[in-house]
């Protein structure tokens, strides 16, 4: 097994296919979910795809050794993304609660006031 893995170590391309799939699933979910919470969850998928990309590019493309220290810029950005996502979820959920209080629904297809 270890040999197999060593022989077939995933390259950057494999990982990018994975994150692209993740991002696309997220986009699909955002455009199709009727429940606002579902939309938000799909959005999280997109964010996570981007965050994984940061880690990947840091791992594969950035020079691993720069004056003896390993570069962690991409990993740091990932932490940021996670933190922002968490904050965004909080705000988003708060909006949904307010919306439900107002309209008694969180179905995004029924929230079409933009056309007026």
């Amino acid at each position, binding site marked *: 097994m270890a040999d197999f893995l060593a022989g077939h170590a995933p390259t950057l391309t494999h990982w990018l296919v994975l994150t692209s799939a993740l991002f696309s699933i997220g*986009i699909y979910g*955002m455009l199709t979910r009727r429940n606002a919470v579902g939309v938000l969850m799909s959005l999280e998928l997109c964010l996570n795809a981007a965050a994984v990309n940061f880690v990947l590019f840091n791992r594969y493309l950035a020079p691993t050794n720069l004056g003896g220290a390993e570069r962690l810029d991409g990993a740091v950005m990932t932490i940021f993304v996670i933190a922002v996502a968490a904050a965004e979820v909080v705000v988003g959920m708060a909006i949904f609660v307010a919306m439900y209080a107002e309209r008694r629904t969180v179905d995004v297809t029924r929230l079409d*006031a*933009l*056309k*007026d």
Partner: protein
Amino acid sequence: MAPLSFVLTHAWLIPAIPLVSFLLVGLVLRPVSERLAGAVATLAVATSAGLSWLLAWDFLHLVPHGQPLPSLTPWSAMWLHFQDGFGISIGTLLDPISVMLLVVVTTVSTLVHLYSTGYMHGEPGYARYFAFLNLFTFSMLGLVLAPNLVQMYVCWELVGASSFFLIGFYFEKPSAVSASKKAFIVTRFADLGFFLGILVLGFYASQIHAGMTQDLHGLQPLDFAFLTRPDVLAQLAGLNVHFLGVGVLTLAAVLIYTGGAGKSAMFPLHIWLPDAMEGPTPVSALIHAATMVVAGVYLVARCFPIFATSGEALTVVMCVGAFTSLFAAVIGCTQDDIKRVLAFSTLSQLGYMMFALGVASFAHPLGYSAAMFHLFTHAFFKALLFLGAGSVIHAVHSNDIWHMGGLRKHMPVTHALFLIATLAIAGIYPFAGFFSKDEILAAALHSGHTVVFGVGLLVAGMTAFYMFRIYFVTFWGEPKSEHAHHAHESPWVMLGPMSFLGVLSIGAGFIPIPEWVQLPGSPAEHEGIDLAVAIPSTILALAGISLAWLLYGGAPDRANALVAKLGRVYTTIKAKFYFDELYLYVTHSLIFRFVAAPIAWFDRNVVDGAVNLSGWFTRTAGLLLGKLQTGQVQTYGSWLVSGAIAAVVVLWGVLKAGGN
């Protein structure tokens, strides 16, 4: 020559004062006080009149007695400078005819303003009326003083516009509105000819101007002083350019004459003048008797050397003038509206002036002086006739002479003044009209135009007849309506100006205008009263008066019998030879149907259709695109993502293509 005095160098003040007053009255005073507006307007014109009299006095004393009066341009400024050697200036041209007309216009205008303060009292739009009278006076004075054709043309149009405003003064009356439109359109149509004439003349004159080597002292091609130089005229006449078989000079002269014929209502453009009587009567006295309508005569006199050099153009002027004078006199014998009779007599007298110019030539310049003399005297007695008619209309509340009658007892002053003016126009010694008419007839006879002389004599007799016809019907006999029974004399603010004009109607013949107004560069030709002319014309005038007394002096039985005998002839003449109907037929049935209607159809359907189509397209596209606006965030998101994908695909393709 004596140095120029203040009024001569500042002659521009004379038109400027009415202009300032027009702006002041029209914009500031009109809403404030009607009385003040009238007073300011009258005072402004009176100031101009005073200045004009001073100017005339100074002008006559510029040269020693007996020498010809000069022609000078004391003030001029470049207005439009197109290129070196072609510019248009504005300025003041002072020569005998312009000074004479300045005096006439300002004097009659002042008297009419004064008269109007009484006549128009209590009318709505009183201040507006005075503002437009001032505008008219300014335009007319600018026209009189114009040193070149373009300034004259500009003022010419201003005069036409103010005439339009004043004829249509009672704009609630449909007849007044259509009369004002008719006057404006007919004269404007004629002015097209004037404009083309200016263009033709300007084109060739500027070429000659460019070819001249001597110093012209800043003279521009369209200046009268340049156009009437003998060497310039000789070159213009020598041009071998023909259009429709006519030389350039004749063509330009005839085109300019078209403009003059429109303003002076020569046949066949005469149709607007009788209808213009819809305006207030003082307006008719000022504009349609004494000043604006003589602008055409003035134009021909101003360009006289051009016409005289052409010769053929002068023949046109003479024939049209003689025909109009006869034609209008015939119609004048049958009209019932007192102002219309006066309008036709104005036409007839304008024809007189025109044919007087037409019989003149460099060798026999008497007709030129005579036309200007008649213009001068006619302005006063015709204005008086109109103001007298206004006074009568004011009392009787009708224009129809058959509603009047017996007014000499109720309105003695008006009656006396109207009689003076009637005698003056009939050409009875010693009233003003006698002298100028005698001069015109002598000019026609001595230049060898016997037929024109005969027509002139005949018209003199007819003038006496139809003027005394309205005089007898209006002032003699029994009152023919309730209003005529209770007619009252007009107030002195109206009778005062009329009396002044009455004095002028008697005395103007003794002012030696023909001595002062001479054609420059021609031998003086003035012989005083010619008995060979005076005796037949007086006999014919007296015969006309007697005939009028016979037919209309008492009860109109004889007149009615004659009318019945004449039958259709009389009705045809009374309908003005159906010229209005002819014009209506031509405009309505021919031009409207075959030219205007197809153009209107094209405009409504094709031009408007294109505009409507673009509007319809925009609306439909908007409606369709509006359907995309669902309000669904997810739909918008889909568009966003599709767009992003499309952008990526395109970008990828471009990069790939660039990479290879």
